[in-house]
């Protein structure tokens, strides 16, 4: 595996391994056979900071529609609803995370995985690492505006 790609979020160097793909909503996607495993990218984790609480509003197994609201997360600095990155059959949630969501902070690309999905469509709305970095270039400004807008 080659060196991870880096994107500067202000002074923070966010790293993105090149062995996987990424979704526009800042999740990584690692395929293994029919199934794809998802987790939060360094971009998402940097914005959240310490994760306090993770909650899913569905139980596996279940069919998902892309962009369907599937859960929520609360962290030190932020909260958010969570949405399905692709359509397909959600086969499993990482149950260990529910008891200890801080693994998202300590091992976001490994043990901090969120859920597994068997996608419905072979054409997936996912980005290569290089495409994801380009996407970040585009959204970094909006991200800062969103945050400033809410603080005002």
């Amino acid at each position, binding site marked *: 595996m080659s060196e991870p790609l880096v994107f500067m979020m202000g002074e923070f160097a966010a790293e993105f391994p090149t062995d996987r793909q990424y*979704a*526009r*909503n*800042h999740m990584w996607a690692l395929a293994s056979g029919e199934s794809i495993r998802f987790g939060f990218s360094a971009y*998402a984790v940097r*914005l*959240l900071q310490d994760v306090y609480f993770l909650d899913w509003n569905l139980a596996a197994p279940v069919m998902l529609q892309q*962009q369907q*609201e599937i859960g929520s997360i*609360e962290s030190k*600095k*932020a*909260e*958010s*609803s*969570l*949405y*399905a*990155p692709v359509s397909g059959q959600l086969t499993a949630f990482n149950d260990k995370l529910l008891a200890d969501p801080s693994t998202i902070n300590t091992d976001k690309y490994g043990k901090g995985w969120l859920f597994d999905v068997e996608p419905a469509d072979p054409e997936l709305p996912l980005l290569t690492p290089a495409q994801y970095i380009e996407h970040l270039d585009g*959204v970094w400004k*909006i*991200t800062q505006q*969103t*945050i400033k807008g*809410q*603080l*005002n």
Partner: protein
Amino acid sequence: MIPIVVSTGQSKNPVKRELEEAVIAELDKRPGYEVVVIPNLYDLSPKGESMSALQALEGDLIIFSWFYQRSAHWILDRHGIHGKLGDVQLQAADEEEDEAAASGTEDEADAEDILRVIDQRPVSDRTIYCLDFRVSETANDFVEEAQRIVREITGQELDQWIQGTLSEQQQARYEQPQNDTAMGPATQAGNTVRIEEAAGRRWYPVIDFSRCTNCMECIDFCLFGVYGVDQSETILVEQPDNCRKGCPACSRVCPENAIVFPQHKTPAIAGAAADNEGFKIDLSLLFGQPNAADVAAQERDEQLVLAGRQPVEETPILAKRQADTQASNPDSLDELIDGLDTLNL
């Protein structure tokens, strides 16, 4: 005589029932309080006995319900019970910090001077205090807040009469007169009126006219004929019972968040105070939340299909209208019209 209305909840939850009864019992003991108990405010029939009783009340009033202050206030408004929003100090514990943080931001927003529907109405000379039963589990908290509000109202009334300011002792003597010429309170204790009325479950939007700018987005959007305009061309909820049960779609298209569905599970749609996020930033838009217009259109389509009608199947309405028109080559008429611009008429 300040009327205190208690609007009971829909739920049979014994804890909630007990809280209501405890508050009613305590207020009932005190002479000078006129307590009126009615069924759930939102479900009341517009021409029913409870609503008529409410409409007959005069002057400032206090109302307990299971809704957010904003929701209760504007439900009453729709039935012709208008008033200024009273300052209720009893809040849920975590809301107090948020209010402090948010109060700075609200002043900035108001400085924008957007014309709201409420600005075009004469200022009401009555104040309505809406208390939310959900902010505490202790009946005494509510009783004390009601007493505080009554004292505040009485104090203000007296100040107006004497054209000055009453001292604490003077107000205390007025409330508990010791001299033998005192007439005593207008009502004795134990005067609670209970109105029983069959109330079916209703679902309809409530407009907050302190935010509404009469932009008409809602009437354009709702295809079930819920919205209409009154004689002064102001938006109103004309056919509330046309509203599709459970559908909150129009609240998402209102640019000023002026549409409230008091029974909706999301606090922001149910009328919770704005900026209640407190110190947490909401990252949902970044984490893949579909934009509000898309969600609204989808919800509306669901309702159309359930009602046996054709779904609209588009996201922003304007995008589709424009997609249908084809750009045509400019002809001599267009050139002529364009030429007018240069004439500087």
